[in-house]
């Protein structure tokens, strides 16, 4: 069978090779392969990972995140201070920064970009990430004052996300709704050249760029041209990278990684601290899902370890608790409260809770069947994850119905009250961000699709978000993790691993993965030929 796979792979590679012209004669652009395009590349308008992964190259943020996903490093801001009450942030902005068109960046550009992000008039889906803003203003020509109505402990991490990118006011105003569609002007290491939606996005080196963040060895971009290419079908993408039609990708199907590691001429590396978690959330006010015994039994009956191994081909990592152990303020003690895999225990728990097996093997209680419907997006992994869970739950007498939707309608469906549970995968940078996004009652019906309404949770999340010191924040958000783990609101499943596959033409590509952006700013990458 291995031989057959190898033969098929070789055939596919040969087929794609023959179609490709000899590319290695001159320094061809760095070709990055991915599976999906974004709807647009305006930082405040798109929440898609596909937008973020390019925006980090096109534009800069005031601060950056190190490869450990926990340490904040300077970006466009050389340094910053936070007032003792946690409400006022002062950023010292670099003076040597230029936009792609050569115009020097001024403090006004910074003020404009951040105001644009948080201004309710712009109806940005990500404006909440900027906190309760009192005022954003310049103090002199190189200090930015970001003043909040109340402390917001997550702000500095949110400032590192692409949503808070600094953009050129002139470009935004001249392009209007077409900013990030027909053109873009930022201060990133690479500049916008041409976008053919769902096909490719071409970037070229920003010739002025010398202000790369200190997480990289070289602050200057080393590659002249970059092409982000879309190949929607993972097998075709894999064949293309195998045939060295492209140079780097982090969308290789997990099943292919072992083979790729064995093929000479490729480097395969993993980002250990990657945060993109998969979970199933219960809607706690629906008939069956409202019963804690059902939720806890689901956590006990689901063989998460087997799912991470079988679905992610040994490349997945089981989530020990609600959140990713790599994330800032992860609470270790909550992992002890997470029910362990124990199907027999789950069956016993259901028996004790009055859920008795019916004639068809599905449990019943007071005439109600232990059935619930889960909604999710029909992506590459959800069908297999959900089907594995479905079979696991069936073994203890719970009937999980799966309804996966095409991405075009899924978000609309996920905003309805039709389902009892939902499957979701998401990137985040801090515990407060993740739980502050999903669990406050004000976030019902979406993204709080659990309809979780609990004054204690609201209070603790608020405490964490408005904390002015690390200890208070850690303690408050830790308490939320414990409370929610005990309530079994989620079935945390797997953290989706990030693997960067590069050909031997590429040197220095390092997996980052902030908000799903595998190559982050793309610095330190060199082409050998």
């Amino acid at each position, binding site marked *: *069978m291995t031989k*057959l*796979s190898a033969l*098929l*792979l070789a055939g*596919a590679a040969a087929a794609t090779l023959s179609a490709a012209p000899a590319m290695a004669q001159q320094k061809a652009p760095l070709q990055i392969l991915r599976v999906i395009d974004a709807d647009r590349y305006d930082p405040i308008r798109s929440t898609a990972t596909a937008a973020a992964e390019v925006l980090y190259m096109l534009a800069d943020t005031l601060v950056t995140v190190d490869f450990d996903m926990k340490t904040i490093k300077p970006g466009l801001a050389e340094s910053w201070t936070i007032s003792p009450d946690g409400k006022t942030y002062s950023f010292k902005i670099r003076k040597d920064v230029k936009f792609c068109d050569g115009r020097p960046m001024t403090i006004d550009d910074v003020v404009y970009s951040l105001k644009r992000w948080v201004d309710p008039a712009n109806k940005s889906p990500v404006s909440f990430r900027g906190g309760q803003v009192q005022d954003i203003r310049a103090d002199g020509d190189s200090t930015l004052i970001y003043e909040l109505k109340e402390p917001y402990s997550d702000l500095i991490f949110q400032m590192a996300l692409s949503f808070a990118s600094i953009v050129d006011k002139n470009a935004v105003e001249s392009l209007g709704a077409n900013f990030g569609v027909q053109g873009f002007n930022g201060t990133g290491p690479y500049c916008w050249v041409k976008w053919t939606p769902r096909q490719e996005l071409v970037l070229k080196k920003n010739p002025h760029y010398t202000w790369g963040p200190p997480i990289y060895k070289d602050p200057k971009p080393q590659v002249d041209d970059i092409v982000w290419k879309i190949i929607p079908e*993972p*097998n075709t993408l*894999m*064949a293309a990278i195998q045939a060295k039609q492209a140079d780097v990708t982090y969308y290789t*199907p997990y*099943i*292919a990684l072992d*083979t790729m590691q064995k093929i000479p001429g490729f480097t395969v590396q993993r980002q250990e601290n990657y945060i993109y978690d998969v979970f199933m959330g219960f809607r706690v006010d629906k008939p069956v899902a409202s019963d804690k015994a059902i939720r806890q039994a689901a956590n006990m009956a689901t*063989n998460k370890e*087997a*799912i991470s*191994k*079988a679905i992610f081909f040994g490349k997945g990592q089981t989530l020990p608790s609600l959140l990713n152990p790599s994330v800032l303020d992860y609470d270790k003690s909550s992992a002890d409260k997470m029910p362990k895999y124990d199907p027999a225990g789950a069956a016993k728990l259901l028996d004790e809770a009055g859920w008795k097996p019916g004639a068809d093997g599905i449990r019943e209680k007071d005439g109600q069947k232990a059935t619930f419907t889960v909604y999710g997006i*029909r992506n*590459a992994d959800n*069908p*297999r994850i*959900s*089907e*594995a869970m*479905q*079979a*696991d739950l*069936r*073994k203890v007498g719970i009937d999980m*119905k*799966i*309804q*996966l*939707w*095409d991405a075009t*309608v899924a978000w609309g469906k996920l905003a309805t009250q039709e389902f009892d549970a939902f499957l979701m995968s998401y990137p985040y940078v801090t515990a407060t961000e993740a739980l502050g996004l999903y669990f406050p009652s004000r976030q019902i019906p979406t993204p709080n699709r659990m309809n979780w309404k609990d004054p204690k949770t609201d209070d603790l999340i608020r405490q964490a978000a408005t904390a002015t010191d690390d200890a208070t924040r850690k303690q408050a958000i830790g308490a939320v993790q414990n409370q929610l783990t005990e309530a079994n609101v989620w079935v945390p499943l797997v953290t989706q691993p990030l693997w960067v596959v590069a050909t031997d033409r590429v040197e220095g590509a390092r997996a980052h993965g902030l908000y799903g952006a595998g190559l982050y700013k793309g610095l330190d990458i060199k082409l050998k030929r």
Partner: protein
Amino acid sequence: MSSVTDQIEKSTGAAEIAAVVAASAPRRKSALRMLLSDAGACIALALVVLAILGAVFAPWLAPTDPYGNDLANTLKPPGDGAFLGTDGQGRDMITRLLFGLRTTLMMGFASVSFGCLIGGVIGFAAAYYPSISGILMRLMDVLLSFPAILFGLAIAAIFGPGLTAVIIALSIATVPLMARVVRGSALVVLQQGYIEAARSLGLSDLRIILRYVLPNCLSAMFVFVTLRFGQVILLGAALSFLGLGAQPPTAELGAMAADGRNFLFFAPHVSVLPSLVIFAVVLAFNVLGDALRDALDPKLRK
């Protein structure tokens, strides 16, 4: 007769006309003998019977639970523990294929039955009552202009993906085709002297249609149903492949082929086996349909 033929020509395709006119003659005893004398038809018939038996008795024939999982033994190649290997959930492929065939055939049977029933009623009505023929057949033309895949997408968007959505879509797609065949066939029958006689005896319209028109159109309908079955299975599998049909854990051949697509290079059997079964079943129905048409065609029999 020629005027009738002209009339039919206006509203139906030339190929269908040939089939309809050829098959609308009363069946003779020699039809079955002629069918069985065709080796290809016999193989096709055997395959169809085998597929139906496999589908009907799947719960008894299947070696394992079709809905359980065995995540430690996923994507095993054929021969390695399981004769035809295992799928992405570690389920035995033989079991999944049998249950997949069951769902696929059931989907085909339901779609063809509903589509033909409604299409048949419309076809007879259009043939028997010329006053409503125009409206009915133009409506059928409108329906014909929508591809079945588009129907599937629209219905899945309204009711949510699932077998019901596929069956509704395929039934609707079958209605106009059946209506055309039946109308064409019935128009020929309605010109016969015995219909005139039945009318002069004062028999009711329904009785004339059921007693005299329907039996004489059956052979054409039968040929159409057999051919349509193959097409419907193919369309249903395509809709399931797109994720609009059977939802997990239901096994369905199109959905199984789609599942295996992700491991095409590493475990081709997961996709290839259900695709081969679809191929064999559709081919069998098509060959059988063609052979039936030939057998029921009096000109060819001569």
